[in-house]
């Protein structure tokens, strides 16, 4: 390339190789200046540290954290073990085994088929939320809960005992921020290819 040098961005900065002044060459004045800068930070009370397990950074209500398998208003599991979430999962983190609902179990399962085993490997999961998008029964949601760290791998395969929300209405997991009417309308809208 010929011609005068032109900066590609407005961010470039000219550097100089000017001779050091006497006080810079003696080094002690600038050295003490450095010490003064650090000591000012020493006495600063405001520190950005968040002591994690005790203090937590505020998370938005639509945070994509640990999954929940929802129950309906009567406390029945919504999941029908169709496997669409497992198909949608890009990390192949979801596995399930289905079974037919027996007579007398209508108060437990909403659909005629349900998942006897439903496992999500939290180490494979990338928390993209595609399972939630794919679910036709509004059964699985990501929540603003964080999957806690552990020393071993096994505890990270979460089964139904960790995933299904409790029967007790007080212990239900609130997903109303993620499941707004707009989201529901979007999922039902047949203009989108995936709903046809």
């Amino acid at each position, binding site marked *: 390339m010929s011609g005068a040098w032109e900066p590609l961005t407005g961010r470039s900065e000219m550097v100089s190789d000017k001779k050091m002044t006497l006080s810079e060459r003696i080094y002690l004045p600038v050295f003490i200046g*450095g*010490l003064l800068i*650090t*000591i000012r930070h020493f006495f*600063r009370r405001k*520190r950005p540290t968040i002591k994690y397990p005790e203090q937590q950074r505020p998370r938005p209500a639509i945070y994509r954290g640990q999954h929940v398998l929802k129950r309906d208003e009567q406390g029945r599991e919504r999941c029908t073990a169709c496997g669409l979430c497992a198909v949608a999962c890009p990390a192949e983190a979801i596995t399930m085994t289905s079974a037919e609902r027996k007579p007398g179990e209508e108060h437990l399962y909403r659909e005629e088929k349900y998942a006897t085993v439903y496992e999500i490997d939290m180490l494979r999961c990338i928390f993209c939320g595609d399972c939630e998008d794919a679910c036709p029964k509004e059964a699985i949601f990501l929540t603003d809960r964080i999957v806690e760290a552990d020393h071993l791998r096994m505890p990270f395969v979460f089964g139904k005992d960790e995933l299904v929300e409790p029967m007790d209405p007080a212990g239900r997991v609130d997903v109303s921020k993620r499941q707004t009417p707009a989201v529901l309308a979007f999922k039902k809208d047949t203009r989108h290819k995936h709903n046809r």
Partner: protein
Amino acid sequence: MSIWIFLIALLVVTLTVAAYSTYGERKVAALLQDRIGPDRAGPLGLLQPLADGVKMFMKEDFVPAGANKRLFVFGPAIAMTTALLTGVVVPWGGTLTIGGLTINLQGADPEIGILYVFAMVSIGVYGIMLGGWASNNKYALLGAVRAASQMVSYELAMGLSIAGLVMLTGTLSLSGIVAYQAANGWGILMQPLGFLIFLVCAFAETNRAPFDMPECETELVGGYHTEFSSMKLGFYLFAEYVNMFITSAVIATLFFGAYHVPGLAALDLPPNAVTLIGLAAMFAKTFFFVFLFWWVRWSTPRFRFDQLMGLGWKVLLPLAVLNILLTGGWYFIKPLIQP
């Protein structure tokens, strides 16, 4: 009898201070960098040194293939031993009388106190040198070579920097120097240049930033202790903190009157109280310099090795000689202006 009590107490205090220096350094580093620092082990993280010690002991004690096994053990042992030995001649305070037992708060007061300190520091180089050599590792060897050349170079300037002080006080005994300072004012007032040179050299001698070339991580992995693990590594790290503590005490002794507190003699307190206040003053002065060591480490970048050598030989050494000439000149001029 009393000397043994003192020596055991000194050993315990030195080791405790060194252990808590690791905690203190991490805490101060964190505060200087707007962090919080260790706070998990015990209240305020005060049990952190204990946790670190347990961790060190639990680690595999590894000796690399091709290492000289005997020297490999000798290195950290020498480093630790010499570091601890220096504290014996430091005058921590006057005498303490408890129930007829007189305890002199200076383990030994040889006529050549300062030379003893320098001798111990020089032997300390062997700990690093042998450890680095015995590791059979290029990084360790380079680190050791650097450490040796650095310490040899700075010991010259360091020795010459206190020559002026020795000329003034007329003695090499540390208690003599303290007595002179109590009578005539602190050493820093009479030898500011000598103090500055001594301080800079002290940083180099203890291998502390900005002169921590021997263990310069970016170039030499871990320097001379690259191959060391478990408590052998612990000894090296510990020796550094002991050295830092003792060096601070020596600086306080030589230039800040050790346990001398101005105006304390006029208060007419009982001798034990004077001794205890003096002891506290000595520790306060020492800890100030320990803090300075930390403060400087977390404020300044490391020197380049050639810059380090240039500073030692071309700046500090001539300055030290100049300091001697000035002090000698003062002796020449003094009779002329105040007969």
